[in-house]
């Protein structure tokens, strides 16, 4: 016998999934006024998990009115100290129900349970704890002695980190005294609906958090509703641009967190083994469904062959399969649509002459899967070096000097994140001054913390989430309506 790990599946019995879910409006679950629904699917098995209500314009109006009422009558006037109590309570409930949330996130999204358990859910709780702490100290955050909330926030979030993106949006909004109407992605609505239950359990006043499930049309109706004061969107650059167009000429505030094509830059004096780990974590974490993923490896030419060889050796040990198995490293691609986008871009890489290598792993028969893949011989002119793939696909480019590394790293319409790998501290600082990216990691990658602001340059969006800076998106010193 060899040391083959026996299956170690996390039990899904910790979570009970209803067959149907309504919209969460004004503290209760209600059907959509049209009665229209859609299904959400486990991407690892293609099994239908639940039927979910699809919100239309009328439902959006109802939710926005509920949020407005809660803002005017309860949440806006409430003292920061009292708002904090609710947020602390929510944070503790998230911790108490963390296993349930992690299993549900994995079922609905396809990400490995190791990540939902050890990364997503703990960060979600941390975001609520962190912002709960701010709620009664906003006068000391650098936004004047008595900053005010903005009002009703419309929040539209993606499917890659469903619950974590909810936390990034909801926690600061509530801490600052706003109320929210949130639309989760159509392929991953379930943890947001469980979060709605947690709001009920925490006795959060009705209307403070409203959750509307639906697809692009629901999102459009929400951001175009005249009753909202602010839009926060995380998702594709394309949709971000259309939101910006539709908000032009209104007095709604907007923050956008969009795509990325981050460079992970490895110098010849890098801590090589840890750099290889960092590159793996940078692009194969969450199947590469990460807006700040290190999808371009920029490696110094003098060590490129060794790094690529080490990378392939390491990728051969990644374990792809059942996302609920505690030993799985790579889970399922979230949807058939996303898989076809990845496949199309990978084909373009092959057609344009880059050399493809995929890790030797067996893909399950059902569900949507893509093996960890590396392209070598990639140049700046290839589509796979320019377009966001949002999948487990790494493009390897080389550079000769630090200046060339900076030029190539910055030569992208995006600017969300970057990574620098070198043992030389002065080089880290020199590079960080020159890289145009919102987040720069040194000798690590994809490390998140609620105290650290996150956001982009250029087509990666504007506004920051997290930290003192993130509070600014939900506060005003103006007199509000």
């Amino acid at each position, binding site marked *: 016998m060899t040391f083959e790990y026996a299956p170690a599946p996390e039990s899904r019995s910790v979570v009970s999934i209803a067959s149907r879910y309504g919209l969460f409006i004004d503290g209760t679950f209600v059907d959509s006024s049209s009665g229209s629904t859609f299904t959400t699917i486990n991407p690892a098995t293609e099994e239908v998990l639940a039927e979910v209500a699809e919100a239309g314009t009328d439902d959006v109006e109802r939710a926005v009115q509920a949020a407005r009422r809660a803002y005017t009558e309860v949440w806006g006037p409430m003292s920061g100290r009292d708002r904090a109590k609710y947020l602390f309570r929510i944070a503790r409930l998230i911790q108490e129900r963390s296993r349930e949330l992690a299993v549900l996130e994995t079922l609905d999204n396809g990400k490995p349970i190791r990540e939902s358990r050890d990364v997503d859910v703990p960060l979600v709780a941390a975001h609520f704890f962190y912002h709960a702490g701010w709620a009664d100290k906003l006068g000391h955050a650098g936004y004047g002695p008595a900053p005010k909330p903005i009002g009703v926030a419309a929040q539209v979030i993606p499917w890659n980190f469903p619950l974590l993106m909810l936390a990034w949006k909801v926690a600061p909004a509530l801490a600052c005294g706003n109320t929210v109407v949130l639309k989760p992605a159509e392929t991953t609505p379930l943890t947001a609906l469980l979060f709605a239950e947690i709001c009920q359990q925490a006795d959060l006043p009705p209307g403070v958090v409203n959750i509307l499930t639906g697809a692009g049309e629901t999102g459009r109706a929400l951001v175009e509703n005249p009753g909202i004061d602010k839009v926060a969107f995380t998702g594709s650059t394309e949709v971000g641009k259309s939101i910006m167009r539709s908000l032009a000429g209104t007095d709604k505030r907007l923050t956008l967190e969009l795509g990325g094509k981050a460079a992970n830059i490895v110098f010849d004096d890098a801590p090589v083994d840890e750099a290889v*780990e960092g590159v793996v974590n940078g692009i194969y974490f969450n199947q590469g469904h990460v807006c700040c993923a290190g999808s371009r490896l920029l490696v110094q030419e003098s060590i490129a062959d060794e790094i690529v060889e080490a990378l392939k050796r390491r990728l051969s040990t990644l374990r792809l399969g059942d996302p609920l198995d505690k030993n799985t490293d790579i889970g399922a691609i979230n949807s058939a649509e996303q898989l076809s986008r990845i496949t199309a871009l990978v084909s373009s890489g092959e057609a344009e002459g880059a050399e493809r290598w995929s890790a030797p792993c067996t893909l399950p028969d059902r569900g949507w899967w893509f093996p960890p893949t590396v392209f070598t011989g990639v140049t700046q002119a290839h589509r796979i070096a320019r377009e966001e793939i949002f999948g487990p696909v790494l493009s390897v480019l080389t550079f000769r000097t630090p200046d060339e590394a900076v030029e190539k790293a910055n030569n992208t319409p995006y600017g969300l994140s970057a990574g620098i790998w070198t043992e030389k501290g002065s080089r880290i600082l020199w590079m960080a001054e020159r890289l145009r990216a919102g987040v720069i990691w040194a000798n690590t990658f994809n490390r998140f913390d609620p105290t650290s602001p996150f956001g982009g340059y250029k087509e990666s969006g504007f506004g920051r989430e997290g930290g003192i800076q993130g509070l600014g998106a939900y506060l005003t010193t103006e007199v509000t309506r």
Partner: protein
Amino acid sequence: MSVPHALPDTSPASLRAFLLGLPGVDEVGAASRTAMLGTRSIKNETKAWAIDTAIGMVDLTTLEGMDTIGKVRALCSKALRPDPTDPTTPSVAAVCVYGDLAGIAREAVGDALHVAAVATAFPSGRASLDVKLMDTKEAVAAGADEIDMVIDRGAFLSGEYARVFDEIVAVKQACGPAHLKVILETGELRTLDNVRRASWLAMLAGADFIKTSTGKVTPAATLPVTLVMLEAVRDFEAATGQRIGVKAAGGIRTSKDAIKYLVLVKETVGEAWLTPDLFRFGASTLLNDLLLQRQRIATGHYSGPDYVTID
């Protein structure tokens, strides 16, 4: 990944340049890698296999001032038949004793097990080379077929790499046919950069095994230290084709810990190293916990400390 383009000749200058030219190790990154591997969930038949494999990798050790002939004989009997109630239990790999007791151990285990003796003025290594060589030769003559030597940490930390190198070469020669394990005493080297350099130094000088610790210094074996040593043997094989063993010694007390080490071995150097010829645990209390877990798997319930023998 630190495969050097060329191995150094043995002149002090090129040895020094080579060791200082090895890639650095980022401590945070190494710790997070081992923490991630520590979450691997080992169940059912895999766990049963891992426990038997771990038992077969134990160097059952007693290294006390109060060691006696009786104590060593008891240890040897335990090493041969770790669980008298279950003859399917594998023997351990070796017994590990002080050099003056190596003869007693050899007499007790015959040819069934390896006898490892600590030598070279263990644990501090503070003696002249002549004394260290005599220590080694006597242990081999008494029947030890494995010698666990300590490096001169003082010389290493003051940058006298050639002196450490020459000493290992001399001890290796004194070992004759016996296998040489070189104890780096990583708890005194402190940084993972030093662990990587000392690993290469020992392998270049002819070590058959590199070993973390004497067990007399805290911290002894840790997962990040063992990771760096495993990376070194992996890269040494890539450079020379030669497979060097790794021994994690000290501080590993539970089956759960032992399994984490096996996972680390599998996912760093591969399953080729999952053999007592290439991976060992230096331990005393670990064995009883492995036996308790083994009994639990066989019977379905936990027994207790009175159902395994103390020695």
